[in-house]
């Protein structure tokens, strides 16, 4: 018998072992739901699969009685737009600040303290100020995501830029490169896959801020719907929505990973020599 630390299961076993806990959780849920529904057929806390699928059918495939919209899809579109804008703007800001502070010592000296302070501020605690400055509409939701995510991306990229081998910068200079050229041709392309990594890591935070923003003031969105129907304990809507958010987050993550492998093969295969 090998030591446990050396024991890594083969592929089919790994799959199976990974599925067992998931299946167990599902079975436990179904059993609990069944038990509660036997006692009270109108119980809303742990809806059955049929209840959830009929709720999903109603939200996604039937037009809403009040507005005629397919709520599930309008919610999804609204949320993805906010998330995309927020994360996109955060990525651009984070890239600029991270790259410039990492590459230019003068900028680093000027901005680093501010960046550090900013990244430690909990944005949700400053909501009233955000409202006054950015209003209550789309902008403030996007801004909340940006403020929540950009400092992390900026610091991560700053760290990676600072960690870039000095040798490459020296080499570029001996080839006649000016600062601009070093930024654009040497540092920026090598930081791009790091940016994608940072965005992947910050997507979770992005979703968190998105849902928080939608819970505060909104007329549509996945977070809005969850917090709205929570008012009458519609877990049959909430659980499919949560599963959908999880799936969307997973797909986004996969897409970014694929994009990074596709655009920057040298980053994934190459050692750092």
């Amino acid at each position, binding site marked *: 018998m090998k030591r446990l630390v050396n024991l890594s299961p083969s592929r089919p076993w790994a799959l199976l072992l990974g599925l067992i806990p998931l299946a167990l959780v599902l079975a436990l849920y179904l059993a609990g739901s069944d038990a509660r529904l036997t006692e009270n057929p109108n119980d809303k806390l742990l809806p059955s699969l049929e209840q959830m699928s009929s709720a999903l059918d109603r939200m996604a495939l039937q037009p809403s009685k009040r507005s005629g919209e397919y709520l599930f899809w309008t919610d999804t579109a609204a949320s993805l737009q906010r998330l995309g804008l927020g994360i996109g703007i955060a990525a651009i800001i984070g890239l600029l600040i991270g790259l410039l502070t990492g590459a230019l010592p003068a900028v680093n000296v000027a901005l680093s303290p501010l960046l550090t302070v900013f990244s430690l501020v909990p944005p949700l605690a400053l909501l009233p100020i955000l409202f006054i400055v950015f209003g209550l509409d789309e902008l403030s939701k996007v801004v909340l995501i940006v403020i929540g995510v950009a400092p992390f991306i900026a610091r991560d990229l700053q760290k990676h830029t600072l960690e870039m081998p*000095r*040798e490459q910068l020296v080499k570029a200079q001996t080839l006649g490169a000016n600062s601009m050229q070093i930024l654009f041709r040497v540092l920026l*392309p090598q930081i791009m896959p790091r940016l994608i990594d940072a965005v992947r890591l910050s997507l979770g935070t992005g979703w968190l801020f998105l849902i928080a923003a939608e819970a505060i003031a909104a007329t549509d969105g996945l977070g809005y719907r969850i917090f709205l129907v929570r008012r009458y304990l519609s877990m049959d809507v909430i659980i499919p929505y949560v599963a959908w958010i999880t799936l969307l987050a997973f797909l986004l993550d996969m897409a970014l990973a694929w994009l990074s492998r596709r655009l920057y093969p*040298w980053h994934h295969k190459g*050692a750092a*020599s």
Partner: protein
Amino acid sequence: MIEAQNLWKHYGDHVVLERINLKVREGEFITMVGTSGCGKSTFLKLLLGTEGATRGTLTLDGNPVPDEPGLDRGIVFQQYSVFPHLTVLENVTIARAFEHSPLLGRLFGSAKRQAEDEAREMLASVGLASAEKRYPHELSGGMRQRLAIAQALIRKPRILLLDEPFGALDPGIRADMQELVLSLWRKHKLTVFMVTHDIKEGFYLGTRLWVFDKTRYDPQAPHAYGATITYDLPVGHMDRALYEEIDDRLHPVPA
């Protein structure tokens, strides 16, 4: 061409180099050996311009060596010398792009083709003709260093600085690389400074060997005195006894 007068380098209280005086003529091939931490790499950095002298002067054609790296001094490091995100060909043409496109650092059209032709010629001369589309991570260590050399030479520097360029290579490949460097040195009429750990390499390559070592040592304050050049020998005029004496100093046999 290069002259040092009473050159000192400290880092705080830590004296690394002291009392360096030398003159180097154009076209010399100088190898530098010494124990680790003896200051030979620091000397290379002074030539490169990434470090400045604490005292004394280091001049190039009578003017102080610029305080940042520049076109006239090419460099090959032991590693991280090439750009991992560019193909072999791009690693060489980028030097021309830096020259002709000050803002973006990119070439287009005929300028691009011209740079590529020139780069292919240079790659052929270092034996990388068939690898131009590959990325550095797809190359062996030796090929990467060949690329680094080709890249360093494309803008025709007068001085080539080599910082233990073959330190991470297998002995067989190292011999090939040494031949390559010698032939390029002759072809491009370069002045070469090469730091090496391998004293044999120092004796074999080039025209002149410098040994960096400390002549004064205070056990109470090991950093109070720096290293200087203890031997300055023309290569090819050396007897076995001297080789062993130097070898013994650099790699003492444990008692």
